């Protein structure tokens, strides 16, 4: 009986993931309504709950894909993968305000450049504080503080050790999770309530998954603006980190 159930659920992976996510969202909105009286947004709870599930999924299977490593919930990996995520992000642009995007264009572009550079510097300084002295390791960890894709791309290009590359991925993951969970809490303080600041936010944060989750939990209407700038960040990071920024570190570190 249970064998059949398991078989049906895992054979229809992506359908099972619809049910799984639907239940998680339903429970989250219930909690938001009844326990927090609507103060904490339902989607913020749902995203946090998703991360908690991902943790336990990782504990249970020892894999790297959260609940998606559990065969029953493999479909969650497809639904939550880059393909569907990007498809849905593009769809949110429908009905977005072109004028607002044009107007925030300059601030958005500056924020991408500055976002990469600032995160890189912060990550590099932390690497130095923790005792790293060679330019390759410092730059790789700095790049990881940009996003968990820029880190390994930079590390591979510069020939960093696999331990340092793993550290850079870890820094990027921390950033992404923190942006997802923390955005709704800091949003009122940093004025994140209009398309203009959402574009700046996307450019400064840069982590597509972090921005996607953070804005969904804050105000879904802002998603297209933040996502638009965030999608340029990783590319710009992969361009700057292993080249100009690395040379700068090399010049400062001397080796």
């Amino acid at each position, binding site marked *: 009986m249970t064998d059949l159930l398991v078989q049906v659920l895992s054979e229809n992976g992506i359908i099972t993931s619809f049910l799984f996510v639907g239940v998680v969202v339903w429970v989250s909105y219930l909690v938001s309504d009844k326990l927090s009286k609507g103060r904490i947004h339902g989607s913020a709870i749902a995203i946090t709950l998703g991360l908690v599930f991902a943790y336990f999924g990782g504990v249970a299977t020892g894999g790297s894909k959260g609940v998606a490593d559990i065969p029953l919930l493999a479909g969650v990996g497809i639904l939550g993968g880059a393909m569907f995520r990007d498809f849905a992000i593009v769809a949110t642009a429908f009905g977005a305000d072109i004028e607002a995007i044009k107007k925030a264009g300059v601030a958005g572009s500056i924020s991408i450049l500055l976002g990469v550079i600032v995160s890189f510097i912060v990550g590099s300084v932390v690497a130095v504080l923790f005792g790293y002295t060679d330019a390759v390791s410092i730059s790789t960890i700095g790049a990881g503080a940009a996003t968990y894709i820029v880190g390994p791309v930079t590390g591979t290009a510069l020939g960093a050790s696999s331990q340092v590359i793993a*550290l850079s991925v870890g820094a990027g993951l921390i950033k992404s999770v923190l942006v997802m969970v923390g955005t709704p809490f800091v949003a009122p303080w940093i004025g994140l309530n209009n398309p203009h600041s959402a574009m700046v936010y996307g450019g400064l*944060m840069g982590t597509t998954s972090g921005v996607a989750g953070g804005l969904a939990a804050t105000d879904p209407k802002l998603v297209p603006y933040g996502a638009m700038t965030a999608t340029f960040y990783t590319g710009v990071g992969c*361009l700057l980190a292993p080249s100009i920024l690395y040379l700068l570190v090399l010049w400062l570190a001397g080796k």
Partner: protein
Amino acid sequence: MVIYGVAILAFCMLAGELAGDYLGVLVGVQANVGGVGIAMILLLILTNLSHKKLHISPLTDSGITFWSALYIPIVVAMAAKQNVIAAVSSGWLAIVAGVAAVVVSFALIPVLSRIGKGDKP
């Protein structure tokens, strides 16, 4: 027809991803540069044009708005497949670097948000 909306969306995403990949090759990086952003701009332009000239039906619209509405559930699924274990067990260096990068970036948002805002007509 609903499928027209879905197809327009698919076309925009594929064209954007392709452009982003080309852009990556062009500037010599192993990454997609702004593929999703380009796709979004393309969708905005296409739907704005065709609403004026071709009169998109509400059903076609719903092929796009359905996916837009599925955004949050998809993000929840995305959260549920993150490598949270690696994030929390990656040691102090990674945690400090990640947290510091987020805090400094958050702090810069109000500063940069001022750019381009003063020129109200």
